[in-house]
């Protein structure tokens, strides 16, 4: 399999012209995550590039260090200890290489150390433009920490005090209809200028403002704010009183977040000097590799990067690539936002333990306040995995909201009359899970899950996969690294991705549909597998069960799938159709073939004892966790 990597936009100093690509043998790539800094060491072994060693250390955004390069040094130092190869000097990474055991030919890095997105939104009138602005920011995955409007009932000094206290990451500035009077817009601009909030990421950082207000006020807004802030002008979110146009501002927020907030952190300026190549935001690195994989396999693919502060979803569906960053669903800093948004009950439904709600709450809160810690007990692990499933579910929901069918000539839900746009929010995405070929996952929790069946189940449950879906995961969390590497040296990135990064987990065959009254045990379909050695295995899918049939990585079996009435399976392709039965090639992997007859949505008993029993049964069937009782 050959993978053509793609170029993606990246930020930084852009000095890559100095690199001699022909003589690259030793490569160091780091990713500075919100929680963990990861160093990956690669080198040419014979005629091929291979992954050699990994080092990880907590990201140092907190006192006493407040400098991300310190965490990276610690991660790199682990690589030094493991390999005996000297990499660090007092100035950063030793490059060019000096001899066989000192320095590297190429050092590149990605970053998402900036973490989540908390926004201040403004509008002239609280329940008109400010409300639209709030909806836009929420739709972009932000948390709205304050809403400023001319009629918000606060005095100017109060607004400024609050702004300074909250330290927003970004401001969405809306107000006025196109062509209307813009006195109030100017008034808001003056408040923002006086506010001059200190950014949480330090003085070198220019706070981004997305201006989506009265078009004719742009020059004046630029005059007032242009020198102090990083201003981005987009179409008005309320060009006319009865028209709402959220998509351009929402997309701009996502782009600005990824390029200006997420990757920055204390010490970012130092890090920029370490590498000759622009620092790439982590989601761009991940997205590059998911896209490349989908293109080579000519497949519909959904990918996820489950991080500490954010969850990034990528879809490559009928050739169209869409990336969404759910800026406040993550497994460390943002874990309690998952709790808040999903609710405790939804997290509890994945936990087979006899544990009180209070204990679960305390465990989640302790993870939030000490984000760099990792689970040490099975209780903690299962609770985090429960939260992970909910993070994936909600992030995918958010992703679906920006992958809606076209309306007229407008992509997504461009300019719509207010009532129409609210109806449009309810419309389904063009992504049909029955027509997705591959589901892949990366990020600390997925890559470091103690058993591969755990990551497979988290992906299956979080997305609620339907039909025939092949699963893969990142081996030791190096997809972002390979993404940025591919922007400079494609050959090595492609080779390492195939040989050392990609872990095929197997294939999930899931029947879409549900039986009323939890008729567990009733047959809902039949799967006949022709194994690579010709052996035929027939499995009756009993409702409420999940099972695995071993099939090694690299092996392919032929599956004939016949759902019973009321359950769906789909013939895939550009014009997919529901069929009575289908035959599919299914890939093996670390887990094997998973026949999932638990219903869609997954039918989990509501009664606590039955629920725990069922979860235990499912986990045991996949040998996912050590016994919990």
């Amino acid at each position, binding site marked *: 399999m050959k993978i053509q990597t793609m170029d993606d936009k990246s930020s930084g100093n852009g000095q890559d012209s100095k690199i001699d690509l022909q003589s690259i043998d030793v490569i160091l790539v780091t990713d500075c995550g919100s929680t963990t800094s990861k160093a990956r060491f690669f080198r040419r072994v014979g005629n091929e590039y291979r992954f050699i060693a990994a080092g*990880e*250390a*907590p990201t*140092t955004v*907190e*006192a*006493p*260090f*407040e400098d991300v390069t*310190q*965490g990276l040094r*610690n991660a790199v*130092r*682990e690589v030094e*200890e*493991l390999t005996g190869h000297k990499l660090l000097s007092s100035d950063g990474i030793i490059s060019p290489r000096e001899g066989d055991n000192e320095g590297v030919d190429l050092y590149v890095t990605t970053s998402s150390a900036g*973490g989540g997105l*908390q926004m201040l939104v403004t509008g002239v009138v609280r329940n008109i433009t400010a409300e639209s602005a709030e909806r836009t920011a929420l739709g972009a995955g932000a*948390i709205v920490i304050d809403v400023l409007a001319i009629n918000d009932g606060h*005095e*100017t*000094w*109060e607004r*400024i*005090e609050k702004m300074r*206290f909250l330290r927003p990451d970004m401001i969405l500035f809306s107000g006025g209809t196109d062509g209307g009077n813009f006195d109030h817009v100017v008034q808001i601009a003056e408040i923002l200028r*006086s*506010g001059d909030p200190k*950014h*949480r*990421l*330090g003085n070198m950082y220019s706070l981004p403002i997305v201006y989506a207000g009265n078009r004719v006020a742009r020059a004046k807004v630029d005059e007032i704010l242009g020198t102090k802030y990083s201003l981005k002008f987009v179409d008005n979110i309320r060009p006319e009183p009865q028209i709402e146009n959220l998509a351009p501002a929402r997309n701009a927020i996502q782009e600005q977040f990824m390029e200006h907030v997420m990757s920055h952190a*204390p010490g970012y300026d130092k890090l920029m000097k370490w590498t000759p190549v622009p620092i790439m935001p982590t989601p761009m690195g991940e997205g590059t590799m998911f896209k490349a994989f989908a293109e080579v396999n000519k497949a519909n693919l959904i990918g996820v990067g489950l991080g500490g*502060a954010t969850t990034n979803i990528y879809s490559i569906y009928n050739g169209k690539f869409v990336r969404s960053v759910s800026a406040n669903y993550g497994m460390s*800093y943002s874990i*309690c*936002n998952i709790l*808040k*948004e999903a609710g405790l009950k939804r997290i509890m439904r994945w936990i087979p333990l006899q544990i009180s709600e*209070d*204990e679960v*709450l*305390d465990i989640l*809160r*302790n993870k939030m*306040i*000490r984000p*760099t*810690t*990792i*689970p*040490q*007990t*099975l209780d*903690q*692990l299962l609770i985090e995995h429960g939260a992970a499933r909910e993070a994936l579910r909600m992030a995918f929901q958010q992703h679906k909201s920006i992958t809606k069918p076209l309306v007229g000539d407008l992509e997504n839900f461009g300019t719509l009359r207010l009532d129409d746009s609210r109806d449009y929010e309810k419309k389904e995405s063009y992504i049909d899970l029955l027509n997705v070929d591959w589901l892949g996952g990366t990020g600390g929790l997925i890559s*470091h899950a*103690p*058993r591969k069946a755990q990551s497979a189940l988290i992906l299956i449950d979080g997305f609620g996969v339907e039909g025939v879906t092949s699963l893969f995961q990142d081996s030791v969390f190096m997809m972002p690294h390979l993404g940025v590497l591919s922007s400079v040296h494609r050959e090595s990135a492609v080779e390492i991705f195939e040989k050392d990064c990609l872990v095929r987990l197997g294939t999930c065959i899931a029947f879409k549909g549900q039986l009323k009254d939890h008729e567990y045990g009733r047959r809902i379909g039949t799967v006949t597998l022709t194994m690579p050695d010709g052996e035929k295995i027939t499995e009756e899918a009993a409702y409420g069960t999940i099972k695995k049939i071993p099939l090694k990585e690299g092996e392919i079996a032929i599956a004939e799938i016949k759902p019973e009435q009321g359950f769906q399976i789909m013939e895939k392709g550009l014009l997919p159709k529901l069929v009575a039965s289908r035959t599919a090639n299914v890939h093996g992997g670390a887990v094997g073939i998973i026949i999932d007859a638990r219903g869609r949505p997954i039918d989990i008993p509501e009664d606590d004892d039955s629920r725990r029993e069922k979860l235990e049964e499912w986990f045991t069937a996949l040998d996912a966790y*050590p016994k919990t009782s």
Partner: protein
Amino acid sequence: MALTYTLGLKRGESLIIRKTRRLPLPGEVLVNKGDKVSYNTEVARLNTPGKFKIIQASDILETKPDFTHLEPYMLKKVGDHVEKGEIIAQRKTLFGLLNKVCIAPTSGTIEHVSDLFYLAGQVMIREPPIPRSVYSYISGTVVDVIPKEGAIIETCGAYIQGIFGVGGEQHGEINVLVDSPDDVLTADIIGNDCRGKILVGGSKIDEEALHRAVDVGVNGIVVGGIKDKDITDFLGYEIGVAITGQEEIGLTLIVTEGFGMMRMANKTFQLLKRFEGKLACINGTTQIRAGVIRPEIIIPREDLNPSVVKKTEKESEVPTEGIRLGVLVRIVVPPNFGALGKVTRIPIELQKTEIESEVRVLEVELEDERRVTVPRTNVELIEDFS
């Protein structure tokens, strides 16, 4: 040499602490460089414009829409001060038989009498300016003045960082209500004499005790742990992303260890005990994201010489390369949460934990001489400054 990094909350009994105190808008700075200030010294003041009251005078005076110019009827002109209840405009008709008067609804200054088409017939009164002050928060010395904005205050004192807090700046005398860091701070031991004080508890406080503290008028509470349910019920809402400090809950709460029943670190407890009766300046503001802000307890000390402290502080700066063999750490994840120990081994290779994760670990010899293996990320460096 094997080493690693971990987070560590700052704690020390003699540190130099600086605070920038700044007005939201330009105003008047009331202190000079070198001034000694108390925690409640007014550092800077700003007169914010008073509220605006608009009177639709044309309606009151019953002038016709096409005769909306108010000037002939005004008894007061722009710039005049008026008292609440004072007549500001008058219209007499029918040879003086009918008398319509417009009365000032508030005291202030006439700012505008409108004859514009779209604001026709309005009188606008600006209420007197409202002074807004910034206080010094900590007692100490003004080391710098920010013209028109505020000042930087420096003090020598004890400093303790908490892990999580709610509520903003508060002050009060330290009152340790429990005998040991294991004890629970309960409602029944919060007496009326706790009013205005900063209470120190041990391993936990519950919702009932929090309400009791508010009723009594306690200014702040420092405690090892609190159950999530108790703080959620007390606040009346659930915290999502941890950005706190603006809650108006009647007091400030600082949690030093975490959620649940959490024995307060003995050194923290002893430090607070040592300064019982002294003034503490506390702030519960917490922001857990890149650019972290943790809650803090500052105990200004007049017995210290700043130049000596500065010298000592420089000499005992935090090691920048993390944990080494022999250093003191505290385990911050159960089991063994809160246990202190000395690092005895830092293996290079990945090790399998009880849940089958392959991670880098440390071996720690606990105070009770047990040796335990812990993921490197699950310990905190004990950062103690002399």
